[in-house]
């Protein structure tokens, strides 16, 4: 920076600074007026220290900051069947805390008893999906947009938004809760989705045995340690290229789409049905490997009931199709044929990524 050479320049600079500050003041006044002096209370995400060290900051949209009142409202909505067409089914009906906010049923029935075609997805650490693609096929961009879908999905909550909004508007407690969260008691679908997204962002899981090991609190067992080695070894598991490289990627997913060799032909085109690109037929979003102890059954269609079946799939059950990922090796023989010992140890390691404190966290319970 160059120093100003003369007094007039200095004076002008001061004038300039004054100008800027006077403008800024005017703007604050304006926003305060719009919200009639009311601001909800900001709430920081409870981010685990290891996430702070190793991961990019979570995605929080500028127009939907986390607030105490917003999260509380979102939680109430998440557990309230009022959003469904016949007042019987809440988000929590298919996203159950003890099951890692997924559903142990292969296909969750909606309000009409009709089952969808995909397994419910677990909900945690979604604020760290920097690609912001949600659902197995990534069709919803942002958690706010995602939250709009289940309410009107005919095989889920089978409602209409006008109907859901008028039920909320007519309910005794909701208008005031929206006023507290957003400064207005006039409810609309956007505000509902914002509140729910705020609550979903608070669902954070970062306290598995493996996290405790990284924090230096415990040792891994021999089996877990060998399982970790299988996971990282490109000649054996080679899981890290899609499910993340320890000790850095604590999300255990690349949040990308792959065909991991489940089928020869596809009933469900997955990502390809959204993009229309035949090169993406049969691709699904890589799920996180956290909390597998609670989230069975596995894969987009819940075809595997146990982790043994999943591991057998990668070891010797791979099936060739045109879009199969090149990371699926030795497909001709069904896979790389892990030894029995390696399979057992890999399972032990995967289970060390489950976080009991997450499924018991009282903050996430309906009280």
């Amino acid at each position, binding site marked *: 920076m*160059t120093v*100003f*050479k003369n007094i007039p*320049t200095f004076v*002008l*600079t001061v*004038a*300039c600074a*004054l*100008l*800027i500050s*006077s403008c800024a003041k005017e703007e604050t006044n304006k926003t305060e007026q719009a919200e009639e002096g009311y601001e909800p209370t900001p709430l920081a995400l409870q981010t685990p220290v290891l996430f702070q*060290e*190793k*991961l*990019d900051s979570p995605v929080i949209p500028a127009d939907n900051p986390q607030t105490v009142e917003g999260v509380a409202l979102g939680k109430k909505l998440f557990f309230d069947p009022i959003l469904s067409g016949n007042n019987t089914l809440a988000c929590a009906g298919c996203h159950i805390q003890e099951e890692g906010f997924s559903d142990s049923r292969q296909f969750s029935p909606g309000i009409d008893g009709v089952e969808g075609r995909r397994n419910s997805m677990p909900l945690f650490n979604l604020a*760290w999906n*920097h690609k912001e693609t949600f659902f197995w096929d990534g069709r919803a961009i942002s958690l706010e947009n995602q939250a709009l879908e289940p309410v009107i999905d005919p095989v889920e909550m089978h409602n209409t938004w006008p109907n859901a909004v008028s039920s909320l508007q007519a309910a005794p407690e909701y208008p005031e809760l929206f006023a507290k969260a957003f400064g207005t008691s006039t409810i609309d679908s956007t505000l509902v989705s914002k509140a729910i997204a705020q609550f979903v962002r608070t669902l954070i899981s970062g306290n598995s045995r493996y996290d405790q090991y990284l924090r230096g609190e415990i040792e891994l067992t021999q089996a877990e340690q060998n399982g970790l*080695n299988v996971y*990282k*070894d*490109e*000649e054996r598991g080679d899981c*890290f*290229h*899609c499910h*993340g*490289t*320890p*000790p*850095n*990627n604590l999300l255990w997913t*690349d949040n*990308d789409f792959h065909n991991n060799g489940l089928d020869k032909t596809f009933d469900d085109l997955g990502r390809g049905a959204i993009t229309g690109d035949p*090169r993406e037929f049969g691709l699904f979003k890589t799920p996180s490997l956290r909390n597998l102890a609670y989230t069975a059954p596995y894969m987009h269609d819940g075809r595997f009931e146990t982790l043994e079946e999943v591991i057998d799939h990668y070891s010797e059950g791979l099936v*060739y199709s045109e*879009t199969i*990922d*090149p*990371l*699926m*090796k030795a*497909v*001709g023989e069904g896979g790389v044929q892990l030894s029995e010992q390696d399979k057992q140890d890999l399972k032990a390691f995967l289970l060390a990524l489950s976080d009991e404190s997450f499924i018991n966290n009282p903050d996430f319970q309906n009280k």
Partner: protein
Amino acid sequence: MKKHILLVVAALVLVACKDVDEAAVLNPNRNVTFNFTQNWEGDEITNADYQTTEYTNAHGETMTISKLRYLISDIAFTDENGDSTIIKGYNLVNAREATNTQYKPAKKIQEGTYTLSFTFGFEKEDNIDGAYPDLTSADWNVPEDLGGGYHFMQLEGTFIDNTGTVAPYLYHTIRAANKTDDALELQDTSFEVDLGTVTVKEGVVYEIKMDVAEWFKNPNEWDLNELNSNLMGNFGAQLKMSENGRTVFSLGETTIVEE
């Protein structure tokens, strides 16, 4: 009214501030932009080519490309006195998805004539395990067992092997790691790419071309039947890939874009 006067004053201040540094007027600092493009022996590789277009490599295998990501770092502008202005930092190109194919560093370069160079991958000092969270989000890490740090390139696809079967290849380049029972020998395989002489002007855009065929050509003619996957832990293969990489990049068009 008062505000209008202030506005004029503010404008004057800006002009005044700008005018003080006389050296900068003679040789102003300029924004520079880099466009990364990919080709196979001169044929541009576009999104539509991934997974579909068949190429024949130097050894004669028919192959397709499904993924191509690579990292470059520390672009340097070196003047005739040998003084370098280095743009510290990295850019991870995802060629198929066309993300970061344009790189606009914040640092400005003074107008003039330079030789342009960059590092393919990360040199040893920068290849720090876990240091770059955005690269972790991109799942770009290398396991600790292989020395940690980051990939330099992921080139993936399929080829027809010598039994006539479609087989995958995973041409991943990293810092070479030789793992024995009691030691891990590491060898830096990043390398400097010299693109020749360039002129820096306002709005200048340099195209940096990658000829993917070169990875399979020279000095080591690559036989995918022998070396297709599990190359990260293959010390010898890493050294060969690094050698082949030296002729992969070249300077393409230089254009001026008016802002």
